[in-house]
């Protein structure tokens, strides 16, 4: 056992953690925006909107993220208009932006399905009650549908976030030196893959476990009314028999 080697490896990999988190955060944030748009399009009731979202979900869930990443990074630059475009080219020639775009597009497909399921699972009675109260469509959505749907979506959403953490490792194949890329480099330099990858694996696992705990905590905080009542500190004394 060579503790100095383990420590120095963990330290070098940890120094790449901010980059991993950066990819992770922007991928999730843009993914959430696209997913919201897709969900809205799907729920809007337009046939064309439904067809578009169905096709989108089919394509992005049915093919590996690696293919999507390569297609965006290597494939799109084939078009002359992409290379000459002042907006697209700075984004699509940078492997970092490409990873974020691929992750966002990919996760949006999964998330829009999660949100759709959550919206459909909102009990009809609640919506009817809100209508009976005379709430406008917007108020109804803001005060009734959205809070319930968000709570219902949370468990599946946390799974998707963990999948995204795992997906950030793919950035290493397009030359980004995030945690996986750094681990790869150390491994090639030292030819001790088992030790190096174990160190990186521990960091990824701790990251995912803390994300899972965070979501469990948020879920707990958001559903106080669904918890069993706390134990009564004082037992209610039985009424003494008088006679």
């Amino acid at each position: 056992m060579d503790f100095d080697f383990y420590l120095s490896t963990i330290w070098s990999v940890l120094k790449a953690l901010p980059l991993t988190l950066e990819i992770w955060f922007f991928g999730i944030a843009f993914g959430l925006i696209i997913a919201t748009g897709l969900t809205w399009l799907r729920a809007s009731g337009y046939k064309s909107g439904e067809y578009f979202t169905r096709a989108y979900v089919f394509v992005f869930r049915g093919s590996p993220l690696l293919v999507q990443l390569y297609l965006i990074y290597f494939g799109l630059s084939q078009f002359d208009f992409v290379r000459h475009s002042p907006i697209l080219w700075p984004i699509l020639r940078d492997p970092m932006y490409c990873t974020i775009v691929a992750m966002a597009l990919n996760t949006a497909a999964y998330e829009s399905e999660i949100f759709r399921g959550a919206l459909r699972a909102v009990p009809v009675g609640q919506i009817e009650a809100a209508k009976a109260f005379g709430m406008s469509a917007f108020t109804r959505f803001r005060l009734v549908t959205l809070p319930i749907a968000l709570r219902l979506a949370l468990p599946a959403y946390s799974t998707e976030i963990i999948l995204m953490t795992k997906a950030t490792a793919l950035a290493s194949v397009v030359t980004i030196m995030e945690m996986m890329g750094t681990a790869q480099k150390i491994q090639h330099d030292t030819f001790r893959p088992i030790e190096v990858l174990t160190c990186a694996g521990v960091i990824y696992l701790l990251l995912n476990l803390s994300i899972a705990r965070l979501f469990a905590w948020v879920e707990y905080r958001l559903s106080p009314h669904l918890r069993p009542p706390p134990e009564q500190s004082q037992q209610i004394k039985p009424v003494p028999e008088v006679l």
Partner: protein
Amino acid sequence: MEFLNDLKDQVSTAYELLAAGWGVQLLWGIGWTLAVTVVSMLIGAVLGSLVAAAKLSHRGGLRFIGESYTTVFRGEPELLIIYLFYYGGTQVLTSVARSSGSIGSTDILNMPSFLGGVLAVGIISGAYQAEVFRGSFLAIHRGELEAARAYGMSAWLRFRLVIMPQVLRLAVPGLGNVWQLTIKDSALISVTGVAELMLTANKAARSTHHSLLFYTVAGILYLVMTSISTPIFEKAERYTSRSFTRPK
């Protein structure tokens, strides 16, 4: 307009390139991808049922092992597991072969890329399958197990006649999901050099400089594979639950 001209060029070269032999290569790639997926699913089925049994065990130690297995292999990036098995396997094989003297002290014995990749994807698939099997086991009516025990069936007989048929029936939809995941994970094996669909597309893209074309074709082929498997699993579900159809 520029865009349309670009597209027209792409389409006309697409046919030429695919007919020039890359089409056949890609078909071989599909074959390898399916082979990797099937073998990984089988490895995963064996590991998954063992891990599911461990997670359902009454012994704390076994439960802990099962829990750790599913947590670790579902929580790590797939790429890391694949590298671990491929490069780690090379490290182990090399040190074993060096110390036994079958290769020179500077030679390297490489992990066979198919074996390394299939083991890695199989172990990941096993973690997901374990959860599927565990869920299906928990969905079996307690009363049936109690009845089997009351009949005096041995543990093996109970497993063979009561538990297994029902677990298999209830697990079909979940296994369909794991199959889709495994097809997509198999694309990552390309980093170890198995000539499956992703690597073939990669090679074609690099050597012809038509990456857009070949990655699009690869993407479409993956879509075909994943969408063909959906009706197959639906059919399997209907077949395995044919005696459980709900009265109309």
